């Protein structure tokens, strides 16, 4: 009974909270720029508006173009079911679930890029080529981090050390005390992965529609109406997932009170959104050619973390 209830809360949070993060980011940026900015709930209004709109499809496109947003959203939701949120256990949890997590997100990327190429537009081809390149480099960073966590949780004596629940579960305090330096390196590099995977500054600029500088926005140029709503929602869920990863890694949620855990978790996720907003306000977008260097750098950083725990 208790598990069913907790799983229902999990699903409800995944379904409702993500767009709020986009609102918080925008509010933070507005605050930094000295503007009032759109209301925090604006992304919800946008979604409601888009879902009832009509659509215009390019003559070049096929079913793949319409299938792209569907896969993007479905894969993000599956990934969200694997990560433990406020409470210890995620609904979809098993030995090796972290690989499903990484690969299901990859599936979403596959179809988003394919849908972009389906329009036959040079711009969307460009965006999709960039997404492919950065995706390749971000994936090993994520995996190095998972390896470090697996090793650290083995050292901390967690029973299910090869699942997300085990790695980000109840013995996190112990994990930090066993190998704090490595955990910190993972945290930093995963924050970088969060920025890349969600196309935020300094890797991409979510605001510059119709410019050649960006990645994610240019891939969805031709989508509109309900399909665009699904893309926006899927992007929000993706941001939420990575924020949740970072929060679960940074804050051990080990008090016995479910309500307190959930509250702390949600505050943490919103704090990550504020952090992203701050990064976007104080940094400029990097030159495209520099981005791979930064990603490789993040990978090497977390590889150091792995060396630290392995030579323990």
């Amino acid at each position, binding site marked *: 009974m208790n598990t069913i209830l907790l799983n229902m809360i999990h699903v409800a949070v995944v379904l409702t909270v993500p767009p709020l993060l986009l609102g918080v980011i925008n509010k933070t940026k507005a605050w930094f720029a000295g503007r009032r900015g759109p209301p925090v709930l604006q992304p919800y209004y946008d979604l409601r508006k888009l879902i009832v*709109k009509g*659509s*215009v499809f390019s003559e070049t496109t096929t079913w793949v173009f*319409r299938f792209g947003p569907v896969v993007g959203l479905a894969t993000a939701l599956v990934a969200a079911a694997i990560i433990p949120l406020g409470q210890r256990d995620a609904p979809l949890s098993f*030995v090796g679930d972290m690989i499903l997590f990484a690969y299901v997100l990859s*599936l979403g990327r596959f179809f988003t890029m394919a849908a972009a*190429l389906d329009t036959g537009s040079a711009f969307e081809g460009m965006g*999709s080529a960039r997404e492919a390149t950065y995706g390749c480099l971000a994936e090993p960073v994520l995996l190095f981090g998972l390896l470090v966590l697996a090793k650290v949780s083995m050292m901390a004596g967690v029973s299910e050390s090869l699942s997300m629940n085990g790695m980000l579960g109840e013995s996190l305090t112990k994990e930090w005390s066993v190998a704090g330096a490595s955990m910190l390196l993972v945290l930093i590099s995963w924050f970088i992965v969060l920025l890349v995977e969600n196309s935020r500054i300094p890797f991409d600029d979510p605001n510059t529609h119709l410019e050649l500088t960006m990645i994610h926005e240019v891939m969805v140029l031709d989508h509109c109406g309900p399909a665009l709503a699904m893309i926006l929602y899927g992007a929000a869920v993706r941001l939420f997932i990575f924020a949740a990863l970072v929060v679960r890694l940074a804050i051990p949620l080990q008090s016995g009170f479910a309500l307190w855990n959930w509250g702390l978790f949600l505050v943490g996720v919103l704090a990550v959104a504020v952090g992203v907003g701050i990064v976007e306000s104080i940094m400029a977008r990097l030159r495209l050619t520099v981005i791979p260097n930064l990603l490789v750098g993040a990978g090497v950083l977390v590889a150091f973390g792995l060396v630290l725990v392995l030579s323990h």
Partner: protein
Amino acid sequence: MAVGLLAGCGLGVAAITQFLIGGASAPLSLQSPIAAARFTIEIDAISVVFLVPILLVSAGAVVYGLSYWKQSEHEENGRRLSFWLGLLTAAMMLLVAARDGILFLLAWEVMAVSAYFCISVEDEDANTRQASWLYLSASHLATLCLFGVFALMAAATGTFGFVSLTGVSPALMNVMFLLALIGFGTKAGIMPMHIWLPGAHAQAPSHVSAIMSGVVIKMGIYGLVRMVSLVDVPPVWWGVVLLTLGVISGVLGVAFAIGQHDIKRLLAYHSIENIGIIVMGLGLAVLGRSLGRPDWVVLGMAGALLHVWNHATFKSLLFFSAGSVIHATHTREIDQLGGLQKTMPATAFFFLIGAVAICGLPPLNGFVSELFIYLGLFQSLAVESKASFAAAAFAAPALALIGGLAVACFVKVYGTVFLGAGRGEHVQHAHEASLSMTGPMAVLAAVCVLIGMAPRLVAPLLQQAVNTWTGKVVPEVYQLASVAPLGWISVGAATLVGLLAVIGLVLHWRLIAAERATSLTWDCGYAAPSPRMQYTSSSFAEMLVDLFRWALIPQKHAPRVRALFPDDKEFYSHTPDIVLDRVVRPIVAFLYRVFFFFRYMQQGNMQAYLLYILVMLVVLLMWR
């Protein structure tokens, strides 16, 4: 011919069924025509694991060939091709059943030679002749090494049969391992011994490429698996070498693939990548054997063997669908194609299934085998040893990099060939492939989905093969069903498919509820976009090729545009094979100069060659 081959495949299936129902057969031993040697044949679980893809892919290729390589369209070589194709299949079936060195080598040579005649079927083309010669020379280098292996084995154990090598001196075993690695590795296409593979796969007819890539190169893997199974506790460095070679083949194979714009060369480089993944699994299993870790053995070996199946299915599926495209458009150049999704919907769909599967993405079969290998690599963290350090620290992130690069590469191919708008006259008359071509693709695609959604179905056979490989039954707690989340993979896949269906229906409902219109692609205000403005596969890959330029050494021909009204200029880029062009060719050229005087003996007279052999034999007998 085709009927005969299908009937043969049917008999093979009957044999497998008998094995699955009745368990291992007693070895069949026959007096061979060569004195002092007996031919032994036996079918065990490892043989069955390799027999299944041989039968599946060969049967598919034969049906596919009925329309792809019609006798009426290829009068000069149609019959020849089906003869050698049949012999190739038979040789492979004999190979996996052979239990002694002589019969094994016999089958191996028949396989190598008939594969040569299959590849060289269009020998009026100079490129084909060159590629098949390269294949034949590489293949014979491999056979030479295998002669060494089996001669050493016979010298050490006193028999040509496959018996345990316990008690053989470590130095001798190491030499045998290295020879086997070169011999079997050349056939399998492990980098840097892959030089023959891209050309041969590209020049052969597509259904032959499917058999070559799907099963022939797996015979190299079979040889390695069988060889290592004879050694009780292999040295740790064997596993480390295999893992390292696996990582190199995997990463560089896919990196080279990204640089290609010939669709079949590209698929060929992906074979090298997937062989890399299989060898990683094998390396992990060997390490587990050396260090006494049954869970690594089970996950590594099961992952490697399942990946053998998976690669056989999705790669032949990809070669079949690429073949349909080539059949319909008469070009292999990716950048000349485009928009085929509309004219060839079934082929496009099957290519997409193959592409998702080969990238190792859920819910298809590639994900399952890669998950096994990942889990094994993660398990290796639990042990404090240098080997585990190497395994985990390099192999697991390398596998992630391979996955990411494969996604990039297959989005590139699928997007350029099937999506967008057609680029030129080749796609004008494209038409959907006939039923005898799409039929085999449908069967292979169904296998990809089935294994991906319900891996529990294949687990018992894999477990049995692992037991055979280790020579003992693995304890219950370390069996595949206990160490791998077989049921959960199905749950995850079903959740994904369910969500896709629900969200797809919601989108469909919203789309029909509101008004819809069609228009031109939005090109940032440009009103007359043309297909030539699309991103090509070379432009898609440019950033990634640039990242790997230290290994790929791509060649660009880029003229400078100077005047205000410049003339027509041409740009092209090309990624040649560095091992072939920068290592093998110079060495061969050097040998050619040094041994020039030998040409005096090579006059092309059959009687002279026979005489040489006789003299050599007599000299050897006297020396003995």
